[in-house]
Structure formats: structure tokens, C-alpha cells
């Protein structure tokens, strides 16, 4: 398979054009949803049924408690009902899911990770897929978005304890944003060949004598929100490489567009909500620059076709689908790891070593270009605060961000935020590689074995969900380790972000003075870009050197 550079350039440019055209209308719509004050009649009915008092706003601690209570209940429900699969309808003859796998899967889908330690075809039936996993695809994406909305309100509001109402934000994001977009996307996917039915079809080829049971299921409805909500958990084991999830290169392009759509519109909504569009554009420019740099590197690394087995095969092919080939696979691989999606249309494990390395670096950046739904923007806003702090040190001024003083409290929260995932990734990988019995679950040899482990924990703690699939993680030890990585990698940052939102909202606004470092424009954008890249490099370079760099550079 050859890398068609013209096709690559056309698709990258087309993605930029389409996203640039849509970021404003969607951003305006998002801001309107988050700033809305009235509820529709169905929403009021929903609030009454759910017991939500829609007219009161919450303090940061109550808002946070609601996030955590909702996520805890979701994890328990998804876990419990998977265990009961054997007696639930719509599950065929599948038994209850193994407890370790069910625990890992519940955490995985509630944290927007969608790491799949289970083989869907043989583990979960329509009931679990449709009413548990796909529902969490909506709700976990919505939780990410409402957390960044709370942070934006904290930045925009002054001298208040109130950050909004979590339940109302969650409902509006789910029903006014995700649901209509997912429905349109799902219908388009069906038109393109993605399956949506509730039965298997028996086919027999009289000439060859081959009989097959062609699978079915509510695939398109799940695929649409899996991608739109940057979730990534496949209806089938092969994920978006499966022809029923991703039947042709046009749908593949559409899926990449869809997974970038909301994260790339959120900066505009942010600019609008803080009343300064330049802020949104600076953030968007940093996201776009990182995406473009990463996708170029990925294109180069894939096109290199490095690897002894790849050379023996006479080119790329292992793990690729013929209808896609290297170009759609490189574009998908970059975009899925720069967001928190983690869906794959090519086996990442079989990519050339440096291409696998780019995928890992993308996640290690904290998935901020443009990142997961909500989580990408709050990640980059935290990095912005770190950047104004560093700029403040350089010019000897107290750092401010949009008129809010970045004092010791704010800095402690931001600093802890950026320490969480590197600590989790490196500690959990470090512990795992010391255990020979556990390492037997990654059957590769040499640096690639380390890469499989590092990729797993990078993916888990950053809530990505893609994998070097050679590793088997369904045993108790790795289920728990990855479960911990996903849980802490999701909720510790959320705790810190909402606490930060609370502390910013309490402050008054300081008028900008001559000493204020502007947080927009090319200068600040470059600083933010530099801080993001350097922070990642400092944290992860030694680990990367032992894995993908060793495999890709030492020959």
C-alpha cells in the first residue's frame, strides 16, 4: 500500500476548511445552550421526573459533588447490570460479564475512556451495548463539557459562589447538543453503510458453499455518539476498522470530522462566554497548530513504512484495511489520539514504531489539540494559567488571567492538575514492568513490549481508550491498574478544575494595566504552545526513549 500525498493534503485541508466553517455557528449555539435561562416543556417534565430543582444554581462544592455522585451512580449501574446480563432481555445467550471485566468496563465508559478489555462480540449483548455503554457515551461526553462550562463561568463571573446547575447543564448538553447531532450523524452513517437493526442475517453462498451469520445491532446509533462524544468504544472488537462501523473511506473521513467537531467549536463558545473572542481564537490557534504538526509527523512516520516485517511484506498492510490504506489511517490515528476518542481504523500496534510513538505523544500532550469534548478545552485553559504564571515570573508581575489573579491557591490547583496524568502513567507503567508474570500479558519482545504497556497506561490515564492491542488486560491485576488509571486520570483533574472555577468565581475583576500579560495573540499563543510541548517532553521523554524511540531510531 502506498501513501498518496495528494490525498493526504486534500483531506487535511478539507478537514480544516469544514471545521473552520462550522466552528462559529456551532460555537454560538453551544454558548447559547450554556447561557440559556429557559427550559422547554419536555425538559421541565424531565427535571420533574429526575427530581432536579432547575431554578437554583450550585456552589462549586455542590456542583462537584453532583458530578461525582452522578459518575459514581453510573459506574455502579453499568457494573451491576453487566453482571446481571444473563437474566436481562436482549442479550442472546450471553452470561453475566466477568466481575473484573465489568468493573473495568464500567469505569472505562463513565470516564469517557472506552478502553475495551472485553471482546464485544462474545461478551456484551444488545442490552448492555445500547442501554448502558451507548448511554454513557452521551453522558460522559456531556460531563466533560459541563466541567469546562463551569470553569468558563468561574473565569467570566465575579464575586459569586454560583457556578450554575450541574443537572441542568448535563441535561441541556445531552439533549440540545449531543442528541440532535448524533441523530443526524447516525442517519448519515446508515446511508453510508453502517448497520442499524436488531437481528443477525444468515447468508449462504450456493456456489462456494460458505454459510455465515452476518451480525447486526444498533451500530450506527452507537457509532455516531462514540465518535461525536470522543468516546471511542467500538460496537465490534475491531472498532472503526470493522466494515460495519466504518464501511468506506468517505465515512472514515466523516468520522474524523465528527470527532473533531465539538472540541474545535468549544473555543469559540469560550470566547463568546468570556466576552473576548480573541481568547477563543488564541486557544483554537494553539490547538490547530498542534494538530497540524502532529498530523504531518504522523503522515511522515506512516509513510516511512519502517519495520522489518513491513519491509518483508513489501510495504504497509498489516493491520490496515484495504479500503482505507495509509492516508485515512494516519489521519484517523492522529485525530483519535489528539482527542480523547481512541477509536481506531487501523491496528495501532502494527503501525511503524515512530507512528505509534506519535500516537503516544498525542495522548501525553494531555489530549488538548483539540482534545476530548470539554476535557480538551479545560486542559488547555489550565496550561494557559501555567503559561501566564511563567510569563508573570519573567516580567516580575503577579500573574492574571482575564482579570483574575492567579494566586497561590489557583497555582497549586493548576500545578496539581498537570502532575496527575504523568504521575499515573509513569507510576502504573513502572509498577507493571517490574512484574514478570504480568508482563507475560504483553507477548511482544524488546522495546515493543514496553511500548504496549506504556501505551496502555498512557491511554487509560488520559481517558483515550485506543490500544496497542497485543496486550491482554482482562486479568484482575491489569483490570484494576487500568481502572485506577482511568478513574483517577478523569476525576482528580475534574476536582481540581471545579475547585479552580470556584476560586476564580469568588474574585473580583482586576482591570488590565500596562503590566498585564495579554493572554491572546501570537506571542501568548507561542508561549502556550511551548509550555504544552516542553511540559510533555520533560515528563515523558525517558519513557518514550525506552519504547517507540528505541524501536524506531535504533536499527
Amino acid at each position, binding site marked *: 500500500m502506498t501513501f498518496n500525498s495528494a490525498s493526504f493534503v486534500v483531506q487535511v485541508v478539507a478537514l480544516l476548511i469544514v471545521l473552520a466553517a462550522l466552528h462559529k455557528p456551532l460555537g454560538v449555539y453551544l454558548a447559547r445552550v450554556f447561557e440559556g435561562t429557559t427550559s422547554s416543556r419536555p425538559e421541565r417534565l424531565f427535571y420533574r421526573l429526575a427530581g432536579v430543582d432547575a431554578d437554583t444554581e450550585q456552589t462549586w462544592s*455542590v456542583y462537584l459533588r453532583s458530578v461525582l455522585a452522578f459518575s459514581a451512580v453510573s459506574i455502579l449501574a453499568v457494573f451491576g447490570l453487566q453482571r446481571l446480563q444473563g437474566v436481562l432481555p436482549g442479550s442472546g445467550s450471553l452470561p453475566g460479564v466477568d466481575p473484573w471485566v465489568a468493573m473495568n468496563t464500567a469505569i472505562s465508559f463513565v470516564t469517557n475512556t472506552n478502553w475495551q478489555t472485553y471482546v464485544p462480540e462474545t461478551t456484551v449483548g444488545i442490552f448492555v451495548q445500547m442501554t448502558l455503554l451507548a448511554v454513557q457515551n452521551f453522558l460522559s461526553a456531556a460531563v466533560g463539557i459541563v466541567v469546562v462550562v463551569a470553569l468558563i463561568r468561574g473565569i467570566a463571573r465575579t464575586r459569586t459562589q454560583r457556578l450554575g446547575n450541574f443537572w441542568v447543564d448535563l441535561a441541556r448538553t445531552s439533549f440540545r447538543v449531543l442528541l440532535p447531532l448524533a441523530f443526524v450523524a447516525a*442517519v448519515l452513517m*446508515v446511508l453510508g453503510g453502517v448497520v442499524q437493526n436488531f437481528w443477525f*442475517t444468515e447468508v449462504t453462498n450456493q456456489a462456494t458453499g460458505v454459510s455465515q451469520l452476518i451480525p447486526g445491532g444498533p451500530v450506527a446509533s452507537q457509532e455516531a455518539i462514540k465518535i461525536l462524544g470522543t468516546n471511542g468504544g467500538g460496537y465490534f472488537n475491531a472498532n472503526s476498522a470493522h466494515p460495519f462501523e466504518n464501511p468506506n473511506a468517505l465515512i472514515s473521513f466523516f468520522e474524523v470530522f465528527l470527532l473533531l467537531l465539538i472540541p474545535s467549536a468549544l473555543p469559540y463558545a469560550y470566547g463568546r462566554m468570556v466576552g473576548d473572542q480573541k481568547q477563543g481564537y488564541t486557544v483554537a490557534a494553539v490547538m490547530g497548530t498542534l494538530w497540524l504538526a502532529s498530523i504531518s509527523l504522523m503522515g511522515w512516520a506512516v509513510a516511512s513504512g519502517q519495520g522489518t516485517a513491513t519491509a518483508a511484506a513489501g510495504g504497509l498492510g498489516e493491520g490496515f484495511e484495504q479500503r482505507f490504506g495509509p492516508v485515512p489511517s494516519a489521519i484517523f490515528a492522529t485525530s483519535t489520539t489528539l482527542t480523547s476518542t481512541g477509536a481506531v481504523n487501523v491496528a495501532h500496534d502494527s503501525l511503524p514504531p515512530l507512528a505509534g510513538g506519535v500516537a503516544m505523544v498525542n495522548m501525553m500532550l494531555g489530549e488538548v489539540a483539540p482534545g476530548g469534548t470539554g476535557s480538551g478545552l479545560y486542559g488547555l485553559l489550565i496550561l494557559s494559567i501555567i503559561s501566564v504564571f511563567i510569563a508573570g515570573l519573567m516580567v516580575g508581575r503577579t500573574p492574571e488571567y482575564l482579570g483574575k489573579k492567579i494566586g497561590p491557591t489557583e497555582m497549586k490547583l493548576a500545578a496539581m492538575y498537570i502532575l496527575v496524568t504523568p504521575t499515573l502513567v509513569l507510576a502504573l507503567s513502572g509498577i507493571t514492568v517490574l512484574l514478570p508474570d504480568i508482563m507475560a500479558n504483553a507477548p511482544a519482545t524488546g522495546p515493543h513490549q514496553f511500548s504496549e504497556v506504556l501505551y496502555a497506561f498512557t491511554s487509560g490515564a488520559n481517558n483515550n481508550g485506543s490500544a496497542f492491542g497485543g496486550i491482554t488486560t482482562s486479568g484482575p491485576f491489569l483490570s484494576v491498574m487500568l481502572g485506577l488509571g482511568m478513574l483517577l486520570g478523569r476525576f482528580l483533574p475534574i476536582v481540581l478544575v471545579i475547585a479552580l472555577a470556584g476560586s476564580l468565581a469568588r474574585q473580583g475583576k482586576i482591570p488590565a494595566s500596562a503590566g498585564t500579560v495579554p493572554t491572546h495573540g501570537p506571542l501568548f499563543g507561542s508561549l502556550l504552545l511551548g509550555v504544552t510541548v516542553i511540559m510533555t517532553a520533560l515528563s515523558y521523554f525517558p519513557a518514550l526513549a525506552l519504547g517507540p524511540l528505541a524501536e524506531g531510531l535504533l536499527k
Partner: protein
Amino acid sequence: MNILTGYLRQLGTALRFLLFATLVLGVAYPLAVFGTGQLIAPYQANGSILKDSSGAPAASALIAQAAADDSGAQDPRWFHARPSAVKWDPASSSATNLGPNDPKLLDAVAANRSAVAAAEGVDAAAVPADAVTASGSGLDPDVSPEYAKLQLARVAAANGLSTDAVAAMVEQYTSSGVVAFLGQPSVNVTALNLAVAAAARPSQPAQTK
């Protein structure tokens, strides 16, 4: 006490929110997509099922359908699909997930190469990459135009058809236009084999080597 009741109330709201959200997002939404799909695109929504000349469902246009024995060797009468980590079983789907430098992958590629070269009676160097590498899903219905051309003579002879006639069918089932530009040109082997069978049927007694 106040804090405790506060927590309990949050948990109660969470449970009720989840329940009613599930009715909308986990029941009404997939059913709405199902209904719309069955209305406007039932062929795609039901798995792109291809029928044979008698009108019976014969294959899915999107799923590989290889006539292979237990060892994985494919029937020489038909166009062969790419190697599969799941033996083309649609009840599962997977790549091999072997690394690009993995010795096991190196062995598999070498074995596939000599098997294809022997089956087609060509030089090992003439075998294209997609013929010796396992696909991402294990269910890839497509091969490269090069691999299809390599198989042309064998399939034509086995079915008593002229190579020109089979070449025209290969052409017909080769992707073109936007999807070929965005991805790469591919030949749908599942649909192609059905076409070959339909053309061969009148004159061809069921003869397999």
C-alpha cells in the same frame, strides 16, 4: 446530618436522572435511528446483504467471505481475501496486533508470501503487500487491484471463463471516484466472487480442485 441528607439527595437525583436519560438516549434514540434507517436505507441498515440469482441472501457486500478449509487455505476456484486473524469469521473481528518488527509477524508474512506465490504460480517478489498481511478487522472484503489481477488467470480457468470476461468483472467491482481517492482503489472480492459464480453457473459443473 444535613450534609448526609444532601449527599443522599444527590445520589437519588443521579439515579433518577440516569434512569430517565437512558429512556431517551438508550431506547428512544436508537429506535428512532432504526426506524429512519429502515425507512430510507434498509439495504445498508441491514448489513448490505447481496442476493444470489435465486434471490436468497448470499453474502454481505461489506464482509469478507472466504471459502477456506480448516488450515486457512482458500479454495483455488475463487478470488482470495486477505489474510485474517479471525479466519474471516464474522462472529468476531480482530487484527493480529503484532508489532512491525515482531519475529512472529515476519514468519507469518514469509509463509503467506510463499503460499500466495505457489497458488498463483508467480514469483514471490510479484506478490503485493495486502496479499501477505492480515487486515485490521479480519473481515476486510477488499483486496488491491494488483492482487486481484494476480488471481485473474486462475479464477478464469477454474470457472471456464475467459480472462477478459473476468477482468471486466474485476474492473466492475473496483472502487473509483471519491472513495478511491480518499482511501485507495480496492476490489470487493465478496461481490466479485458472486458475479463470477453467476457467470460460471450455466456452463460450469461444480468442479473444485
